[in-house]
Structures are given as structure tokens and as C-alpha cells.
């Protein structure tokens, strides 16, 4: 069991998300940077999809009320455990009563904190992934706050750190996103098709629903269609010409043209990009 003592970033419980709920308009949810979340779990011998804490921008302190084996992956930050300092990705044992303090992210923006056994919390539709608008999943569907405490699924002490390779990921301030044409790609005007693929875009805002970019205004011949299916990686084009890249809490349908679908392997790295990073789009067949 651990208790949150202070928190600056935005933290929720996440796992692999929900399956079979799109028919009711319930988003899949789940990890943003799937690769890093799996990595955190695997470092301590967990199943890769167990529920863990997803923390945006860093800045969290918690106290362990029991002995725990913990792994931290994703964005790079300084981690202080009792009197030892680590840099993520890392895994370590914490004794009962000791504090763990996670610094601000110095590279990337999403940190994953996994506990041996996975976090034991509320499930809705089979998933612990917190979805705020309808308060689904872990921590009663709310963001994590000071004073919240979490249990793990296993109670016995595990002090074996699995010899799982430490994947150090380098996060950059510029990224090229490979994409395939979306079903409404051809609604983009010819001039804008060129701009979309040759110019760079500034990352303006980032949250679990999607990331917004701005750059050359991308014009479509129409922006209002009947609502169609959208998912993680879908690039929507609203009338203001600034593309939105939908991510893990993407709604299930949307009425803007789906001009592109980001190549899945590029999405995890994209999730780690911070506001004011540079993005380019490159078509792949």
C-alpha cells in the first residue's frame, strides 16, 4: 500500500483499456505510451498490462506503507527513494515507511509507476483505466490526489528485480509521424495536401483525448460530415484547419474529416512529446 503525499502532475490509474464497449460510445482508454507502460510492468515481472499509475509531467511524492517492489519507466526524471537517487527507467525495493519522490520530467512527459502485482482498484467494464467524464475505472474514476492510497494485488514481499533490459528511450523535440491516408483525405484541398506533408506543426496542447497541433491552416472542402468511427491515431480536421491527433481517450465517433491515421508504432513516442515540440507528417503506403 502506498499513500500520495504531494502531487504536481496529472495522474490517473491506467491499464490496457476496455474491449467491446465502443458500441455504447465508451472509449477504449488505457495507457498513452503503451510501450513504456509495458516496460514498467515487465521490469518487475508483472504481466505487461497490469494497472499502474500514469503521471503527466512528473512531480509526485508517496510513502510506502508496506514493502514494495516498484518500477518506473517512460519519461526521464530523477527518482529519490529513501537516501538513494535513481533516474528512470529504474526499479527498486522500498521498505515500509520509506518515501519515494519523483521529480519533474526532464525528457518526455509521461511517467509510468508500476508496483509488483499491479494496483488493485475499481474496475468498470473489465478495466481499471480511469475515464474522467463518466468516472469509470480506478480510484473511483477520479484523478489521483493527495491522500489517495493504493493497494497491490499481491501482499507478499517480492525482492527479486527481474533482469529485464532497461530500454532508455531518447525523447526529442521534433518528430516525424508516419501516416496512412484516412478515409476523408481527399477532402483536403490540393494546396493543403502539400502543406500537410511538407511543413512542420507546433504541438499546442496535450491531454489523454488528443493532441492539437497548429501550423499552416489545412483546408478541406467540407468539415462537417455525418459522424463516423474514430480511434487512437486518427487525425481529425476541424474547420479551423488545425489537426487533432486523437489518442487513448478518443471518443468512438467524430464528425470532422478523418484525413490521416498515424502509423501505430509512432504513437507511443508522439504521446511523450511536450507542448511546443515540432511535428511533421509523412505519408507511408
Amino acid at each position, binding site marked *: 500500500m502506498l499513500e500520495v503525499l504531494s502531487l504536481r502532475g496529472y495522474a490517473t490509474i491506467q491499464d490496457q483499456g476496455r*474491449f*467491446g464497449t*465502443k*458500441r*455504447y*460510445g*465508451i*472509449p477504449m482508454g488505457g495507457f498513452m505510451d503503451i510501450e513504456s507502460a509495458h516496460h514498467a510492468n515487465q521490469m518487475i515481472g508483472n504481466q505487461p498490462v497490469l494497472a499502474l499509475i500514469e503521471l503527466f509531467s512528473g512531480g509526485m511524492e508517496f510513502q510506502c506503507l508496506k514493502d514494495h517492489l516498484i518500477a518506473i519507466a517512460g519519461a526521464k526524471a530523477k527518482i529519490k527513494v529513501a537516501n538513494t537517487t535513481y533516474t528512470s527507467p529504474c526499479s527498486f525495493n522500498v521498505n515500509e515507511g520509506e518515501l519515494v519522490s519523483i521529480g519533474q520530467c526532464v525528457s518526455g512527459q509521461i511517467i509510468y509507476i508500476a508496483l509488483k502485482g499491479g494496483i488493485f482498484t475499481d474496475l468498470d467494464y473489465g478495466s481499471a483505466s480511469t*475515464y474522467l*467524464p*463518466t468516472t*469509470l475505472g480506478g480510484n473511483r474514476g477520479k484523478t489521483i490526489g493527495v491522500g489517495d492510497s493504493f493497494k497491490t494485488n499481491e501482499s507478499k514481499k517480492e525482492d527479486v528485480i527481474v533482469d529485464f533490459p532497461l530500454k532508455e528511450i531518447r525523447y526529442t523535440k521534433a518528430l516525424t509521424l508516419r501516416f*496512412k491516408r*484516412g*478515409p476523408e483525405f481527399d477532402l483536403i484541398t490540393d494546396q493543403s495536401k502539400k502543406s500537410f506533408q511538407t511543413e512542420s506543426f507546433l504541438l499546442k496542447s496535450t491531454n489523454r483525448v488528443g493532441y492539437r497541433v497548429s501550423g499552416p491552416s489545412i483546408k478541406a472542402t467540407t468539415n*462537417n460530415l*455525418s*459522424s*463516423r*468511427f474514430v*480511434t487512437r*491515431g*486518427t487525425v481529425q480536421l476541424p474547420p479551423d484547419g488545425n489537426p487533432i491527433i486523437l489518442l487513448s481517450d478518443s*471518443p*468512438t*465517433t*467524430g464528425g470532422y474529416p*478523418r484525413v490521416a*491515421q498515424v502509423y*501505430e508504432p509512432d504513437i507511443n513516442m508522439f504521446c511523450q512529446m511536450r507542448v511546443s515540440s515540432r511535428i511533421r507528417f509523412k505519408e507511408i503506403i
Partner: protein
Amino acid sequence: MFSLFPLTDRIVEIRNLSLNLNDWIRLRLHLESTLLFEEVLNTEDSVVIIYEYGKVSNQSQLLRLISKFEYNGLEKIIKPRKVRVKVKYSEKDTDLSVLSDLLGLSISNIIELHMSGTYQLVMYGFVPGFAYLKGVIESLRIPRKSTPSYLIKSGAVAIAENYTGIYPLDFQGGWYVLGYTDFRFLGDNPLLPGDIVEFLPI
């Protein structure tokens, strides 16, 4: 002519200009009944197939399944359920007076036209449990607000274009609100695409 549009490795959208909503619902049921997929969804003009993780879409298998369905002549019959939703229409916290100006209809006229309609559930989307209900009478149709309202309250019964719907939670939105209801779609045995909704004033 059916066309298949892969969105990702495991998500395929099926389109066909000559199908209507009921055809799409029947095709969805047909594909669901094969138990080959994680989920099959319909929109007003498409069906979307989601394969389980680790599986990759198989276009020739899909085309075979669809053509078998065509051969059966869209015969699968849906027996729609029907619910009557109680609505409190009033000018309080609604857009009725704005709508009255925009549509050139009296408020009582608007209420009468909305409550006398029969609506078909097309799909869920936008936010969890938001059902798109199709069938708004021509004279009530209005485009979405150009600037969405910052807050539409939970339970709001609203219209836009050919659709009416119920906001299941406090959320921003661009539809015009006519009244409020306690009815929510998500619960035990939720209504599904094809089911019928009517509104009853209280």
C-alpha cells in the same frame, strides 16, 4: 459495390453508397453473429470491424462474409424494441425561445413536432451513452450551433440536423436543448442501433 477501407491493421471500415441505415444494422448483426471479431459497429453509412489484438484484418475473408450476406438479400429481420421517454419541455435552461426565432415556429409547435416524432437509434458516440436518434421532422431541422455551448446539463434533450439525443452527463455541445429527462441509455440491457425511441411530455 462494397469498398473496404483499412483504418489500422486491425480496424476496417466497410462502405457502400447504396445501403441505408437498416441495411447497415443488418450487416452489423450478420457480421457479429460470426463471432470472428472483437467488435462490429455501425454508423449511419458504414460498418466498422475491429479485430482482436494480435490479429490482422483479412480482406478476402471479409468480402466473402459480406457477399454471402448480399446473397441472402439483406433478409435478417431486426425486431426493434421501443421505449417512451418522459420529457419535461420548458423554457427554463433550454433553447426553446431561440429556436422559435430561428425556425419561425411557436414554442408549442416545436414541442408538438418533437414529441410526435418516432426516432431510430443509429449508434452511440460522442460521449459514453450518447445515442444518436434519427428522424427529426424536416421543419425542425437546424444546423449545430456555430459555437458550442460551454455547458449542456445532464439529461438535456436536444436536436441538431436530423438527430435528437439525450446528454448523459454535463458536457459542452452544439445541439439545441428543448427539455430535460431522467432517462439514460446506459443501464441494464441498453437499447441498440435499430431500436425505437419516442418522447412523452410531462
